[in-house]
């Protein structure tokens, strides 16, 4: 039998070995030709690999070792993984990040600006180099006059509708044809009334439309109603403006006719939260219309190839009003502490530039941000309407408190739709929550070009 001394000695050795192994396990790979990259996500590993293979076939990439980890950004939710990695010295050299988080992450010192790399390795000015990408996407990566990464994918918002359901209830489909008409809110309400049907117990078993589901976020309608989050002139949060009140009045108005709880029960039944992509109320022909974007195209083609699912513009107040939308998307950024080498720059430029985007954008379903890739239509043909939207699209305002604004306005949406707050109470609370946070960034200015058209050259 093992004696106590040997047991203690063995246990000590085992503990030391474990500590040693764990401390070495995630240490940074070294060398100027080694790049650690946090990729698009487990479902898109093939896209990352396709770009990497293409890069390795170039002169710049032939001796490069790229270590891909799939640690996806979780949108506005959680930055703990990347902060921990940067603080622990194990951060990647390159990170596929939701562009919406760029300014917040730059403001806390999580990202490296790339202007120095452009100046060092490119023969053109920083501005000229950045002009290869669509303006609003570059704006979303700009903080305090510096650029924090290059934009990759983008998107826009529109209405996705099922022609079968609309035809069944006798709707004139020309109303939804984006080449003939932009539907108004009143017309959309009437269509929703006609489509919506209840079963014998009073539950919706076929549903038309409500403005608070899917991409029906306050931001989406704010762009149509002229509501702005931040006034660049006065450096003030403007979440209590009359335009924002109109956004929440829209929810309150629709919720009077389509109660939040009943709508929620419909979605919980036919498209519950965290459901697999196949369990979609559109695919089961229970839902007629929803606000969404081109990322849905892949799913439509894969899971409902025979359904007549089509796209049109977001609704406007009255006939003749200009169309509107907004664009999100991703970017490639360099976390603090990365090995800023020419190799890294070449890989970043390749990945976010025309060569990379022409490989992965058609596979992703979204739209490119690289102007040449847009002009040469390196995207899914089903996204053509969204491509038309791009010149007049813009991003959500690039603010260092972006996540908090998103979270706050989204919560107010359900409060108003449920009737627990009036639109006036909602906007007052939103302002009270966000203004003090933004006050920590006195005289903050968004880029001058924010909110202005982003021209795309003709083919």
């Amino acid at each position, binding site marked *: 039998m093992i004696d106590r001394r040997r047991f203690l000695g063995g246990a000590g050795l085992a503990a030391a070995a474990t500590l040693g192994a764990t401390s070495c396990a995630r240490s940074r790979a070294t060398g100027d030709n080694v790049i650690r990259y946090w990729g698009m996500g487990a479902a898109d590993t093939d896209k990352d690999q396709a770009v990497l293979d293409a890069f390795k076939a170039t002169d710049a990439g032939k001796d490069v070792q790229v270590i891909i980890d799939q640690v996806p950004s979780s949108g506005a939710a959680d930055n703990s993984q990347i902060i921990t990695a940067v*603080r622990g010295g194990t951060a990647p050299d390159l990170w596929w990040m939701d562009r919406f988080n760029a300014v917040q992450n730059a403001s806390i010192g999580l990202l490296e600006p790339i202007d120095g790399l452009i100046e060092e390795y490119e023969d053109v000015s920083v501005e000229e180099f950045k002009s290869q990408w669509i303006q609003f996407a570059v704006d979303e990566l700009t903080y305090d006059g510096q650029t924090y990464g290059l934009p990759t994918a983008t998107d826009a918002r529109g209405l996705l509708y099922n022609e079968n359901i609309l035809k069944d209830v006798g709707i004139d489909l020309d109303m939804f044809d984006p080449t003939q008409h932009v539907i108004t809110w009143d017309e959309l309400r009437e269509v929703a009334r006609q489509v919506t049907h209840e079963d014998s117990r009073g*539950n919706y078993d076929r549903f038309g439309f409500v403005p608070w589901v899917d991409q029906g976020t306050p931001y989406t309608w704010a762009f149509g109603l002229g509501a702005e989050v931040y006034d660049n002139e006065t450096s003030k949060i403007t979440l209590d403006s009359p335009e924002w009140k109109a956004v929440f009045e829209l929810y309150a108005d629709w919720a009077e006719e389509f109660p939040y709880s009943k709508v929620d029960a419909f979605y919980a039944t036919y498209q519950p939260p965290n459901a697999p992509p196949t369990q979609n109320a559109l695919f089961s022909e229970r839902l007629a219309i929803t606000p969404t974007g081109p990322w849905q195209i892949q799913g439509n083609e894969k899971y409902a190839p025979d359904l007549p699912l089509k796209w049109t513009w977001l609704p406007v107040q009255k006939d003749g009003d200009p169309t509107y939308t907004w664009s999100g998307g991703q970017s490639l950024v360099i976390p603090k502490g990365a090995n800023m080498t020419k190799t890294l720059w070449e890989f970043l430029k390749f990945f976010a530039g025309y060569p990379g985007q022409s490989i992965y954008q058609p596979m992703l379903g979204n739209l490119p941000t690289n102007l040449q890739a847009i002009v040469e239509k390196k995207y899914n043909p089903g996204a053509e309407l969204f491509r038309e939207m791009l010149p007049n699209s813009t991003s959500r305002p690039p603010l260092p408190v972006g*996540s908090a604004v998103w979270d706050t306005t989204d919560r107010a949406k359900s409060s108003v739709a449920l009737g627990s707050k009036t639109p006036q109470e909602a906007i007052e609370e939103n302002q009270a929550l966000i203004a003090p946070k933004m006050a920590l960034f006195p005289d903050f200015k968004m880029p001058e070009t924010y909110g202005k058209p982003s021209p795309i050259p003709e083919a």
Partner: protein
Amino acid sequence: MSATDVDGARAAGTGAPARSTTPLAGASGEKRRMSLTHKRNLRLGLLFISPWIIGVAVFIVYPVTYSIGLSFTRYSGMATPTWVGVQNYITAFSDPLVAKATGNTLFYAIIAVPLGLVVALTLAIAMNQNVREVAWYRTIFYAPSLIPAFAMSFIFIVFLNPQFGVFNQVIGLFGGSNVNLLGDPTGVKIAIILMAQFGAGNAALIFLAGLRNVPKTVYEAARVDGAGPIRQFFSITFPLLTPVLLFNLITGVSGALQVFTEAFVITNGSGDPDGGALFYMMYLYKTAFGFAELGYASALAVLLFLTGLALALLIFWLSRRFVNYDVDAA
């Protein structure tokens, strides 16, 4: 004269109460020998418990101390913390979301904890029945506690589905209309309270140990005196279980203040509808890792810690009135 001699003189000559003398307090040579043994035992003892000492120091003492320090700063997790004094605490007391999250958490705690104790005690009594298949009952009653909170949350989403969920199917059998618990700010809290009862098995095991500790002779004496089962429960079982009840109450309150996982999964991290499931820990988490306000989040954590401590002390103080430690005497 050594201190031991003084003590000995006092004890012998003055009539003062004599200290208990141990072998360690004997002759100096003996003292040295015993002291070496004592030291060796101490070293070995410390070595054996060193993983826990290190664990507590590294994973509890240091983070708690660091967090208290951070609570007086503005800190994003990246740049150097900036001292802001008690500003984070002032902000916390005027933040409407802190008020909402606190209200939600208290709503949960006030219902879930007492209900959990009743459910756990009922399960424990069922597990304590003197029948042959009791081992099966114990396994069946305890099994739901083994399901991780996130998995139970997914089960509940389906269970409570407003149309095809079992919950609404049963209501339908009695002619009731569908209830969309997860679509209502109060309903979602009630759903999470119901879900928590599936984890009552852990507390039930502790109650069961307490029940097994009550001497059978006491029940026999009570029966001889003519006490029925209900009288026996309220006069014997319950009073003698109060130390266990106190333990379960304190751990239950502590757990209730930190409710997080179920709400996070069910609401997809939003805490909606209408912030109805925005519990304190969830707001703290969002503040720290979503909004990169680790200083403010640390202040919220300190306030939570102080609240938990105050409640524990209050329960201890109240426990003098209801806890009976006479089980051995009984």
